[in-house]
């Protein structure tokens, strides 16, 4: 962003000086954040990235005063030069209320579901700033308009439950603006949104920063996103900020090995689909889906009776032996439903599913038939922890999966087979004794894959199998899957909302939206020369170097109101004193 506006010697809006966060848990004190030093100048955006559990959230929460009971801090937190530790509680609350705005990952959880948006927007204005309710309502409508919400008056009367995640996130942002904060603390505010919505929200934030001279501490997993929207990026590992880089040049400046590894995983160098070479030679389709349709009965919006909701509508594609097919599309587009029908977890209302010549349109009847199909198609789910029975050890889980198909196996043979499977997903044999709770996300997902491989299937369906994992782990798993595909010749049906993931692994891709296939074809065709408008939007929304988020859906028609920012007001007050 631009250089600070008010002279060269200006205190940072936010300064974390060797911040430490300690927790007293079960009588022992553990230090969770050791040394977090970050400086955010007025109007500057600083990205905070790092592996999961490195202490990003705790650091931000320490600033906002939201640490859980029993937590204490060391080092110093300064807001506009004032050390928080030195302030009285009421002054502290006031300072936080007026200087900091915080936006969270899940806006739905952070808004009171029982109160209207209007209530939420005006509450701080009325109870903290002492505004009159009418004035507060008018200002709330203004703020909503500022974040690009088309009909603010109507929205003010609605409750959070009636709004989409993207809208809610904008409401959250608008509400923080009510008190004219100097800095926005944003903790993974777009992680739960799909790419197009993410772009929307980031565009709103970019606008605000431009108009309000708003500083920002932006916590994210997405290095590309951080690079695209921030001025500087701080990298955290094990509770320490290990280095801070200029966003524009971070790829070249990175010196820490961890940072480099992170960059390599998250920012692929124009690397083409790994499966691209598999397109050679048309093999026979193991799976052919045609005209698939699934209608759900949902309770109607009016409250009476049920409505019919078509989740999958006329979907058709083919998966060839040994190849990898990706299905992409925004949330709710019917990807999972399609996969579940293929695996017999859901019954199609119309259309056919043919697997190696057999008709699989209806779920298997009887145990024998189910076992037979299980040997052909297996599935890996998004949440690795939830997809394992938490009461059983890894060994037991795998043994059970093996036992289904080979009932007569002796114990020693069974153990050998379990070890072989663990080896196939490159897990230590010792892990067989552990229960899911004692494993990391990546390890769990490997176990889930090993379990799927137990049946030696022809088809492996992966429903967002890597979305919940952090970037480095994602890459490991994807590499593993690609290796397995090459070794065993299993065909992959890969479901994802992340185009990058699909590009890495698949040779063909199906793009879905609202239950309909909008486009399909070879990876290179679709991703590089998209035909459908929707595919193009999807591709444009992906953060990358030099990316500028743009508003697509609700472009503002009226000019932004001139807002009095905290900065300008300070100056005016200064003028008066002079």
């Amino acid at each position, binding site marked *: 962003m631009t250089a600070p506006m008010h002279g060269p010697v200006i205190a940072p809006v936010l300064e974390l000086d060797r911040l430490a966060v300690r927790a007293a848990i079960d009588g022992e004190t553990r230090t969770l954040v050791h040394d977090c030093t970050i400086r955010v100048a007025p109007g500057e955006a600083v990205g905070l990235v790092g592996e999961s559990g490195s202490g990003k959230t705790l650091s931000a929460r320490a600033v906002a005063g939201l640490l859980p009971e029993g937590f204490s801090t060391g080092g110093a937190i300064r807001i506009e030069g004032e050390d928080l530790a030195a302030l009285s509680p009421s002054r502290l609350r006031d300072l936080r209320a*007026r200087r900091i705005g915080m936006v969270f990952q899940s806006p739905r959880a952070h808004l009171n579901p029982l109160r209207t948006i209007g209530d939420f927007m005006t509450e701080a204005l009325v*109870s903290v700033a002492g505004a009159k309710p009418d004035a507060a309502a008018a200002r709330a409508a203004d703020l909503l308009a500022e974040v690009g919400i088309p009909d603010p008056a109507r929205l003010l009367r609605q409750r959070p439950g009636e709004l989409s995640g993207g809208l809610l996130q904008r409401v*959250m942002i608008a509400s923080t603006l009510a008190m004219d904060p100097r800095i926005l603390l944003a903790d993974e505010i777009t992680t739960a949104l799909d790419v197009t919505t993410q772009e929307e929200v980031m565009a709103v934030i970019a606008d605000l920063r431009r108009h309000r001279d708003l500083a920002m501490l932006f916590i994210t997993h997405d290095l590309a996103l951080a690079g695209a929207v921030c001025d500087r990026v701080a990298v955290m590992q094990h509770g320490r900020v290990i280095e801070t880089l200029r966003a524009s040049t971070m790829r070249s400046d990175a010196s820490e090995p961890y940072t480099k590894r992170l960059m390599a995983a998250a920012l692929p160098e124009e690397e083409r689909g790994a499966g691209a070479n598999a397109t050679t030679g048309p093999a026979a389709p193991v799976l052919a889906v045609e005209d698939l349709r699934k209608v759900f009965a949902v309770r109607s919006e009016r409250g009476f009776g049920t409505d019919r909701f078509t989740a999958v509508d006329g979907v058709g594609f083919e998966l060839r032996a040994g190849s990898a097919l990706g299905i992409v599309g925004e949330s709710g587009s019917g990807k999972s439903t399609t996969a579940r029908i293929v695996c017999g977890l859901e019954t199609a209302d119309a259309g056919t599913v043919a697997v190696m010549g057999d008709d699989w349109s209806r779920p298997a009847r009887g145990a024998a038939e189910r076992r037979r199909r299980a040997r052909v198609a297996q599935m890996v789910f998004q949440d690795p922890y939830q997809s394992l029975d938490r009461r059983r050890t890894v060994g037991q889980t795998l043994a059970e999966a093996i036992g289904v198909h080979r009932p007569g196996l002796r114990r020693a043979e069974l153990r050998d087979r379990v070890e072989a499977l663990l080896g196939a997903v490159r897990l230590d044999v010792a892990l067989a004794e552990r229960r899911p709770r004692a494993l990391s996300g990546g390890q769990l997902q490997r176990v889930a894959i090993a379990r799927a491989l137990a049946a030696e299937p022809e088809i492996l369906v992966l429903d967002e199998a890597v979305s919940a994992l952090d970037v480095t782990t994602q890459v490991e798993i994807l590499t593993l899957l690609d290796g397995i595909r090459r070794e065993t010749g299993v065909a992959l049906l890969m479901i994802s909302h992340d185009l990058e993931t699909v590009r890495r692994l698949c040779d063909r891709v199906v793009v879905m939206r609202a239950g309909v296939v909008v486009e399909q074809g070879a990876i290179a065709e679709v991703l590089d020369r998209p035909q459908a408008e929707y595919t193009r939007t999807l591709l444009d929304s992906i953060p990358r170097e030099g990316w500028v988020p743009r508003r697509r859906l609700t472009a503002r028609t009226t000019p932004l109101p001139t807002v009095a920012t905290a900065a300008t007001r300070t100056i005016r007050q200064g003028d008066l004193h002079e």
Partner: protein
Amino acid sequence: MNPRVLAQLARQLGSLALTLFLSSVVIFCAVLLTPGDPVSAFAGGTRPTPDMIAAIRAEHHLDDPVWLQYLHWAGGVLTGDLGTSYVYRTDVVDLIAPRVGITVLLVAYAVVLIAVFGVGSGIVAATRGRIADRAVLMATSIGMALPTFVVAILLIWIFARVLGWFPVYGAGEGFLDQLYHLTLPAISLAVLYIAYLSRITRGAVVSQLHSEHVETARVRGIPRARIFRRHVFLNASPQILAVSGATVAGLFAVSAIAEQAFGIGGLGSLLTEAAARKDVPVVQVISLLLVVVFVVLNAIADVAIAIIDPDSVKPGRTA
């Protein structure tokens, strides 16, 4: 009103009617299954002659097929004819009507106590720090182990033998005197439920206190009291309401014990007495009445929840 709330109301009414119908069948059949001849119950205390037996059987449709007997009975109940007591030989309405008031007053009194002390102590436990929490936890643990009749006899013992501040017998006359008389019975009725509701309230309030939307309010500097009122308690109230329907209905049933112990002529004491005397029609009607109370109170609670939180009846996946 919000259409979802209206829809909830309509659904409630439908399910209410169905539950009532089914439970009336259950209650009717239960009493039919009673071994022994209702005739002898009706003629209890005298030696019925064959003529009398025939007359009684005819009068009470005892020779009709079961479903017809049910229809007679249910039809009667719907039209306000609740049947005739075997024992008192008067209309069941006349037996029940004068007793309803005192039981309702007793239960209402207990409900006030429960609301004030149960919800109050739950809030204190959730918000006033560890010591208060421990103390309330301790008190409610004991409260949850104190059956109504034990509280009743302890209160009678203390107040009859030692203190004498409150009467331990009868219902009194006139509103204030009745309240005075019902104080101890209401306490004995309320103790267990105070503890129970205190637990529920504490749980609900604590979960709201730790909820993310309350964090948001805190970052925004909203005053504590306001956060508590508008974000914590309001959001906790559906959980409290959800158990209150069953709680109040339960009070009506348990009032039998308090009424018996304190010599109050209410519905509950009539029920026990009627059961002991095998007064089938009375037992049927009171049981049904209690079911109606339960179902209606639950429906009211559900609708209240729907008004506070229309999203609780969110459209979405069925089944």
